C-alpha cells in the first residue's frame, strides 16, 4: 500500500513540468486526504482556481485528434455501451431539445439525435418543431473534431455546436428538456456551480444525466482496476497519443472525483429531485440521474 502511494506521489511530480507556469503550490498528495492547500484539484495535484479551466482546455486541445480512438482503446470499446445506456435512460422523445455538455466529439449527441429522430419516425403524431441537440464544450479543438464527424455522418440538421463553460452556459433559462454530461463533470473547476447551471437551463421536469467514472465496489476489483488504470492507461497514452501526462491526469482525476453517494448528495443539494444512480460494471462508471421539479 505504502509502495503504491509512493508510486502515485512520484507521478504527481512527473506532472509538474506539464502544468508549467500555471501551477502553483503543487503538492504531492495521496488521493485519500484533502489537504488545505489553496486551489483546486488537478489530478492529484493542486492548481490555482482560475488556472484549471485553461489547463483542461489545453489538455483536451492536445488529445482532441485521437480522443475517440483512445476511448475505444482504453475502455475496450465499452464506452460505447455506457453511452448507449445513458441515452436509453434519457429516453429521447419527439421534439426534444437536448444539451450535451462537454460532448465535443459528439459521441453522445449523435446517439441522442438518432434516438430523437427514431422516436419522431415511430410516433404517428407529427411534432411542430423537430428535436435538436446542442453540444457545448470548453475546447474549440474538440468541437472541431465533432463537426468533422458530423460532416462524415452527413448530419446537417438538428445539431448546434457551442463553445462554452459548464459553469456559465451560453443558454437561456428553462430552455432544454435534457442535460447530459459524459465523462466531463470531473474536469469542471466547481462542480456545484455546474450543477446549478444545469438546473437553470433545464425546463421544469427536465432530466439531468451524468455519466462518469466512479468508485469501484469490492477490494479485489478496485485493485485490479487501479493496476490497469495507473499502469496501462498512461502507457497507452505515451505510445498511441504520445502524451503520457494528459492520460495520467485522466486517471488521477477519476480518483479525485467524489464517490457515487457523495455525488448524488451534491446533485440533490443543487436542487434536483428524484435523484438516483446506477452503477455499470460494479462502479467503474455510474450514471447519476436527477429531475428539475
Amino acid at each position: 500500500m505504502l509502495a503504491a502511494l509512493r508510486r502515485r506521489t512520484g507521478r504527481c511530480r512527473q506532472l509538474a513540468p506539464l502544468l508549467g507556469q500555471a501551477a502553483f503550490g503543487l503538492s504531492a498528495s495521496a488521493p485519500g486526504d484533502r489537504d488545505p492547500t489553496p486551489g483546486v484539484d488537478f489530478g492529484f495535484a493542486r492548481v490555482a482556481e482560475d488556472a484549471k479551466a485553461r489547463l483542461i482546455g489545453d489538455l483536451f486541445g492536445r488529445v482532441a485528434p485521437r480522443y475517440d480512438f483512445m476511448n475505444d482503446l482504453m475502455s475496450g470499446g465499452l464506452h460505447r455501451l455506457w453511452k448507449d445506456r445513458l441515452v436509453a435512460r434519457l429516453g429521447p422523445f419527439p421534439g426534444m431539445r437536448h444539451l450535451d455538455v462537454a460532448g465535443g466529439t459528439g459521441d453522445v449527441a449523435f446517439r441522442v439525435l438518432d434516438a430523437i429522430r427514431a422516436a419522431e419516425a415511430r410516433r404517428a403524431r407529427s411534432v411542430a418543431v423537430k428535436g435538436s441537440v446542442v453540444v457545448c464544450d470548453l475546447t474549440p479543438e474538440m468541437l472541431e473534431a465533432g463537426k468533422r464527424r458530423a460532416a462524415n455522418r452527413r448530419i446537417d440538421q438538428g445539431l448546434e455546436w457551442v463553445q462554452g463553460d459548464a459553469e456559465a452556459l451560453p443558454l437561456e433559462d428553462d430552455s432544454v428538456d435534457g442535460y447530459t454530461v459524459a465523462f466531463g463533470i470531473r474536469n469542471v473547476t466547481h462542480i456545484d456551480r455546474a450543477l446549478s447551471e444545469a438546473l437553470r437551463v433545464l425546463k421544469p421536469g427536465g432530466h439531468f444525466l451524468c455519466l462518469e467514472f466512479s468508485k469501484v465496489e469490492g477490494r479485489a476489483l478496485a485493485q485490479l482496476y487501479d493496476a490497469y488504470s495507473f499502469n496501462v492507461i498512461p502507457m497507452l497514452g505515451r505510445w498511441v497519443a504520445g502524451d503520457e501526462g494528459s492520460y495520467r491526469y485522466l486517471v488521477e482525476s477519476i480518483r479525485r472525483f467524489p464517490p457515487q453517494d457523495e455525488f448524488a448528495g451534491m446533485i440533490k443539494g443543487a436542487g434536483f429531485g428524484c435523484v438516483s444512480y446506477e452503477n455499470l460494471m460494479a462502479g467503474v462508471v455510474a450514471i447519476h440521474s436527477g429531475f428539475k421539479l
Partner: protein
Amino acid sequence: MRLPSRRTAHRLLCSARASVATLAERTSGNVPSSWGLVGPSLGSAKEGRDTNSVTALPQHVRHFRKAVSDCSVWAAGGTLIQGGRCPIAKAPKRRRGSSSLGHGARSETSYRAPEQAGNKDEDQDQASSSSGSREQTEREPGQSDPHQVDSVRLALLNAAMKHVKAHGWSVAALEEGARDLKLSPAAARMISEGPGGLVQHFVDGANTDSLKECQTHDLQVLDQRAALVLMLRTRLEKNIPYIGSLPQALRLQALPKHAPTAFTSLAAFVDQCWHLCGDRSMDMAWYHKRTALSAIYVATELYMLTDFSPGFANTWTFLDRRLKGMLSVPSLMDEARGSLYAAIVQAGGVASKWVGVRSSSKQ
C-alpha cells in the same frame, strides 16, 4: 357456508385421494389397488362422518400430520407468499391492514409509488449483502424532499391515465401526462418502470377504490358468495373503461420485470376480499382460499377480454359460476374425507376380525 375448522396438507392429500376413490366406487364399484386405498371395504360418507375426529387417530398419525402441516406452511410461507403474510406471522399485520381500510384504505395522497418502494427494498438488500460486485445497482440515497417527489410522480401517473385510451399503456401516455402538468416530457422517465409502472398504478388505484366502495355496503349481511361476487365484480368493472388496452396491460404485468409486483398486489387484494368477508382462517385454508380466489379473479379477467355481451353479462355469470364451484369444494372435501376415515375404520374392523378369527382358530 360451513368451513372446516382445521385442515392440513396431509389431510388434503388424503381427502383428494378418497374423493377419487369414492367417485370411482360410485361409478364402477371397485378401486384400483395402486391408489393405495383399501378398496373393497370403503364405507359410505355417512358412516365415516361419525368417526371423523382427530382424536380417533393413532398418535403417530397425528404427529406425522402435524409435521407435514408445519413443513407445508413453512414452504408456502417461504416461497409462495412473499412478505411474510403467512397465517402465523400475519395476525398483527392483518389488524393493521384492516384498521387502515377502516379509515378509507390507502388514501391517494399517501400512496407511495411502487418504484420507490422497490428502490428502498434494494437498499436494504444491498445493506445486507456484503458483496458489492453486482453488475448494475440502483439506489436512492436519503431523499431531500421525498414528499414533493412523491406528489409529482403521483400527479404524473394520474395525468398519464387520461391518455391511456389514446396512447395505450406507453411512455407516450406518460409524456403526454407530463405535458398536461406543464412539465417537460423528459419527466416521464421519473416513472422508472415505464409503462409497467403506469399499469401498476392503475391496478393499485382500482384495487383500493373497489375495496373502498365495497365497504359502503354491509358485507356482513350478505352471504359469502354474494359478498365475493360483489367485490370481484366491483373490481372488474374498473377495467371496463380500459377494456380496449387491457390485453396490453395484462401483457405488461406478466413480464418478468413486473410480475412480482403484480402478484403481490393481486395477493393483497384477494387477502382483503377474504378479510372483508369475515374470513378468519389461520390454517392451510388461508392459502387455499386466497389461491382459489386469485385464480378466479384472473380467469374472469381473461374471460372479460373476449366478452362482447351487453354490459359484460356473460362475465358476471361466469364469475358467479366459478365462485359457486369454489365454495362447494370444501363440502365435497368433507364428504371425501369422511369416506376415507370410514374406510380406515372398516379396514381396521376387518383386520381385527381376521386376527380374531385366526386366533380363535388356533385355539
